[in-house]
C-alpha cells in the first residue's frame, strides 16, 4: 500500500545511507529482512501497533464487559445464515441491513479454532480481534494519508485501539465495529494519493458496505463525499464523484431491491416490511436530553465517560477544533456530525453509538497534535515568541516530543492503565457461563423443553440441543411474533423454563405471557447477585 510520495522518498534516501554502513556485518538473509524493514517503516510500525492492540483487546475478551443482549441477537442471526435458515433466527424484520451478521457468519470459523467453552457469545468475541486489527491498521494509513508524521499516526492508533472505551466496545460483537472498518477504509481510499478513479469507486463500495453493516453510518456520508472531493483532482473530479456516488448508491440499492423482490418493501398487514421497520426505528422513543441528569441518554453518556473521560472530552473537542485545519476537515466533519446527531435532544442513543465516533476522535486528536508540532517548529512561531521572551528558544523536535510524552504518560496513562487493567482482568460473565452450565446439567429432555431466554443465552442453548426458535425462545418473540405465539395455545402454561436476566426483568415492551410465566414459577437456581443476577425459573403448571 502506498502512503504518500514525499515521505517514502525521504525514507529511501535514509535507508540508502544506513545500508552502506550495515551491509558488511549482515549476512544475506538477515540483510534482506533488514532491507525490507528499512524500506517499509510504515509496515513495521503497523505490525507492532496491531499486535499491541490485539494483545490488549484479546486478553480476557470473553469475561469483560458483560455479555449484551444485542451481541446475542447478532450472533443468533449469523447462526441462522450459517445454517441456511435465512437472514435471522426468527423471521427477518429489517431491524438492520443484514451485511453485519453476514460478516459475523463469515468469521464464525474463528471461535471454533479456540477452546469452545460453555458460553457461545463469550467465546465468539474472538472474531472481533481481526476486525480491530484491520481497523487499527486502517486508522494508521488514514492518518498518514492526511499528511501526518509517523509518530502522530501511531498516536492515532494508540488512542483508537487502547483507550479503555475502545478496548471495551471493540471487543463486543456489535455491527458498528464492522461498519467502522468499512467507513475508515472508505476514507482511506477517498484520500488515496494517486487520486485514482478506481480508488474512488472502491471508496463508494466501502461506504455502501459500511451503511449496509450498520445503517446509522449514513449520517457520515456527507463528510466522506467531501473527502472524495478533496482527494480528487479538478480535472477528473466529475468522474470520481460519479464513480463514488453511483457505486455507493447502486450497492445500497440492493437492500431495498431485496425487500421488493420478497414483496416486503412497503408496509402491509401480515408481513414484515422495510418501510415499516424504518418508520419504527425513526419513531423509537428517545432517551431524553443527553445533558439532563437521570435521562437514559445521559446514563449512556455517563457510562462512556466512566470508561474513558480522556477520549470522550479530548475527542469531542478535537473534532470541532480540527475543522480549522484544511486537511483534517472531512474527518473532523464526520466526527462533528456524529457528536451533533448523538446529542440531539429527543433521539434514541444506543450504547454502541460511540463506536462509530471513536476513529474520528482518534484521528482528529492525532491530527491536531501533529499540526501543533508543525506550527511549533515553524520559524515564524519562534520569531513571534521572541517578541515576548528576551532569550532564545532553540527547541528541537525531540524536546517537544519528550515533553509531551512525559505529560501524556503522567496525565493519561494512569487513567487508561486502570481502565485497561479492568478490561483485562475482570470477570463480568461468570453468572452467564454458570447458568448455561447448570442448564446443560439439569435439564434432561432438551429437545422437547421450551425455555424462554434473552438473546445473549440463545445461541448457547441452541447449541445445547434445544430446538432453535420454538424450543429455545427469544423472550421478545413469545408475545410479539405471531409465528411463535401460535405455537403457545395455552399461553404461559406451554413454557417450561424462563432464564431471567436483567433485560427480561426490565420487561421493556410489556410482554404479558412472559410476565405470567415468571409469576407462576419457582426459582430453581440463582447465579450472581443484585442487578446482574440470573435466575432460572421453572414454570409450575
Amino acid at each position: 500500500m502506498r502512503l504518500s510520495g514525499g515521505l517514502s522518498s525521504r525514507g529511501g534516501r535514509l535507508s540508502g545511507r544506513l545500508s552502506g554502513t550495515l551491509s558488511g556485518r549482515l549476512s544475506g538473509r538477515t540483510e534482506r529482512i533488514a532491507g525490507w524493514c528499512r524500506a517499509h517503516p510504515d509496515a513495521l510500525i503497523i505490525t507492532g501497533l496491531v499486535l499491541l492492540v490485539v494483545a490488549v483487546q484479546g486478553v480476557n475478551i470473553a469475561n469483560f464487559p458483560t455479555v449484551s443482549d444485542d451481541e446475542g441477537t447478532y450472533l443468533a442471526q449469523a447462526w441462522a445464515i450459517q445454517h441456511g435458515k435465512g437472514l435471522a433466527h426468527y423471521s427477518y424484520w429489517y431491524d438492520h441491513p443484514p451485511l453485519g451478521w453476514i460478516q459475523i457468519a463469515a468469521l464464525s470459523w474463528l471461535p471454533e479454532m479456540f477452546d469452545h467453552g460453555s458460553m457461545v457469545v463469550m467465546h465468539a468475541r474472538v472474531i472481533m480481534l481481526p476486525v480491530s486489527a484491520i481497523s487499527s491498521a486502517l486508522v494508521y494509513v488514514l492518518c498518514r494519508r492526511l499528511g501526518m508524521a509517523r509518530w502522530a499516526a501511531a498516536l492515532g492508533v494508540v488512542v483508537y485501539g487502547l483507550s479503555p472505551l475502545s478496548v471495551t466496545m471493540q471487543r463486543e460483537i456489535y455491527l458498528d465495529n464492522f461498519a467502522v472498518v468499512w467507513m475508515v477504509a472508505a476514507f482511506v481510499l477517498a484520500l488515496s494519493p494517486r487520486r485514482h478513479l478506481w480508488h474512488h469507486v472502491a471508496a463508494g463500495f466501502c461506504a455502501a458496505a459500511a451503511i449496509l453493516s450498520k445503517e446509522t453510518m449514513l449520517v457520515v456520508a456527507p463528510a466522506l463525499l467531501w473527502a472524495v472531493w478533496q482527494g480528487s483532482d479538478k480535472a477528473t473530479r466529475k468522474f470520481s464523484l460519479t464513480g463514488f456516488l453511483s457505486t455507493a448508491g447502486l450497492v445500497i440499492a440492493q437492500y431495498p431491491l431485496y425487500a421488493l423482490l420478497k414483496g416486503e418493501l412497503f408496509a402491509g398487514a401480515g408481513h414484515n416490511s422495510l418501510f415499516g421497520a424504518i418508520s419504527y426505528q425513526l419513531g423509537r422513543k428517545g432517551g431524553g436530553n443527553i445533558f439532563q441528569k437521570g435521562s437514559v441518554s445521559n446514563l449512556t453518556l455517563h457510562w462512556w465517560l466512566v470508561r474513558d473521560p480522556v477520549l470522550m472530552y479530548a475527542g469531542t473537542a478535537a473534532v470541532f477544533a480540527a475543522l480549522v485545519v484544511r486537511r483534517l476537515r472531512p474527518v473532523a466533519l464526520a466526527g462533528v456530525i456524529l457528536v451533533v446527531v448523538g446529542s440531539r435532544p429527543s433521539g434514541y442513543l444506543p450504547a454502541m453509538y460511540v463506536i462509530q465516533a471513536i476513529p474520528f476522535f482518534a484521528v482528529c486528536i492525532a491530527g491536531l497534535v501533529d499540526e501543533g508540532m508543525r506550527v511549533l517548529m515553524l520559524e515564524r512561531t519562534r520569531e513571534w515568541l521572541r517578541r515576548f521572551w528576551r532569550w532564545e528558544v532553540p527547541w528541537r523536535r525531540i524536546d517537544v516530543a519528550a515533553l509531551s510524552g512525559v505529560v501524556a504518560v503522567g496525565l493519561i496513562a494512569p487513567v487508561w492503565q486502570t481502565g485497561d487493567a479492568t478490561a483485562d482482568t475482570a470477570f463480568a460473565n461468570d453468572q452467564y457461563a454458570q447458568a448455561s452450565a447448570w442448564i446443560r446439567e439439569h435439564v434432561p429432555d432438551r429437545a422437547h423443553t421450551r425455555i424462554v431466554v434473552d438473546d445473549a443465552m440463545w445461541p448457547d442453548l441452541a447449541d445445547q440441543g434445544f430446538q432453535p426458535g420454538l424450543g429455545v425462545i427469544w423472550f421478545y418473540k413469545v408475545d410479539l411474533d405471531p409465528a411463535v405465539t401460535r405455537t403457545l395455545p395455552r399461553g404461559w402454561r406451554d413454557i417450561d423454563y424462563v432464564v431471567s436476566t436483567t433485560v427480561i426483568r426490565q420487561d421493556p415492551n410489556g410482554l404479558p405471557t412472559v410476565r405470567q410465566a415468571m409469576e407462576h414459577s419457582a426459582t430453581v437456581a440463582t447465579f450472581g447477585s443484585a442487578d446482574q443476577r440470573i435466575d432460572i425459573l421453572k414454570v409450575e403448571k
Partner: protein
Amino acid sequence: MFSTFIVAFSFVQFGVAAFTLWWMLHAWRTPETLASTRFTVPDGDCGLSFSLLVPARHEQEVLDHTVSRLLESTHTDYEVLVIVGHDDPDTAAVAHALAERAPDRVRVVTDHHEKKNKPKALNNALPHCRGEVVGVFDAEDQVHPELLAHVDHAFRSCDADVVQGGVQLINYHSSWYSLRNCLEYFFWFRSRLHLHASKGFIPLGGNTVFVKTDLLRANDGWDQECLAEDCDLGVRLSSQGAKVVVAYDSEMVTREETPGSVVALMKQRTRWNQGFLQVLRKKDWRRLPSRRQRLLARYTLMTPFFQAFSGILVLLGFAVALIAHVPVGVALIAFLPALPMTATFLFEAVGLHDFGRQYELPVTFRHYVKLIVGGPLYQLILAWAALRAVWREFRGRKDWELTKHVGAHLAVEAEAVA
C-alpha cells in the same frame, strides 16, 4: 438448473458491462492519465514532410471547404492528394479547381477501379505520395490548422510509427441518435483508444490517422477487400509491434458529422461490424506477442456483437427472474448486470457535460433526457446492425454502403463561432 443458468449468465453480463465501462473511462483514471492523452506542445520545428490523402466520392458540396481548411495549416512541408473517381465529374471538377488554386500543394489522383471503395482509393494514391508520413482525412473533415505541427512533434518526440489524432462528431443537436453518436465518438477517441495504444493493440480510426510512408508501403497499404480497412491496418501494425501514439485535444480534433438518417447510421454500423468480423476472421491479431493482447483483440473485435444483445438479454433475464419463481438470491443476481449498466448511463451523462464544456456547446437538460431515453432505442439500432452484419458476412456480400455527408457539422461550427 434454471437458476444456475441465470446466475452464470448474469455474472458474464456483469463482467462484460463492467469491463466495457472500465475501459470507457480509461482516460479519467488519474489526473496524470488524462494529462498524458493530450498532444505535447510542439517545439516549432517542421521536421517531417506529410502527404495528406483526401478520398472524395460525390462530395462536391463539402470538399472545397475541407481542402481549403487543410491549406491553412501552419506546417510548412506537406501536400494534399485528393482522390476522385473517374465516374464522378462533379467532385473531380471541385478537386481540379483546388489544384489550380494551389498547384504546389494540391494534386488530384483519379481512381479507375470499376467497383470503388475507400481502401482502393487510398492504395491508388499511395505510390504518388512524396512525404515521409501519410495522413488520411475524409472529404467532410474539419481539420485544425495546427494539427500537423502537433502530429509532427508527436512523431519525433515519441519516436512513433503511427499517430492517431482525435475525431469528434459535433452535430449533437441534429437528432436524438446524433447525440448518442457524438458521445460514442467522445468516449472512444477521448478515452478508450488511449487504453488500446498503451496495451499495444489498436484498431485505428478511419481518418486523422498518420502512418510512416515506408511502413505503409512495406505492408502493401490498406486491405482492399476489408470493410474496416482502418481497423485492419491498426491490427496488422500492432501485431508487428509498431509504436502507436494517440493524442486528443478538444481544440485539435477533426470535426465530423453524424450520418444523416437512422438508416444511414445503421448502414454505417453494419459496415463497421462486418469489417470487425472480417478482421477477426483474418486472424492477423493472433500474431500479437502476449496472450493478454490477443484476448483484448478478440474481445474488442467481438464487442459490437456482445454489446448489441446485452441490453435485450439482460431485460430478458429480469423478466425471467421476476416471472419464474426463483429464489430471492438468484433474482438479486439476475439484477447484477443492471449495476454497471446504470453506472454507464450516469457516466455518459457526465461525459455529455464534459463534451459540452470542452467544445463550448450549450448542453441543456433536454439533451440529458434525450441521452437517457435514447439509450435503449440506440441499442436496438446497434443490435439490428450487428444482426445485419452477421447476415451479410454469412451471405458473402462485401460491397461498400457509403454514408452521404451534407455538412451539418459546419453549421454547428458557425453557430459556435457566432
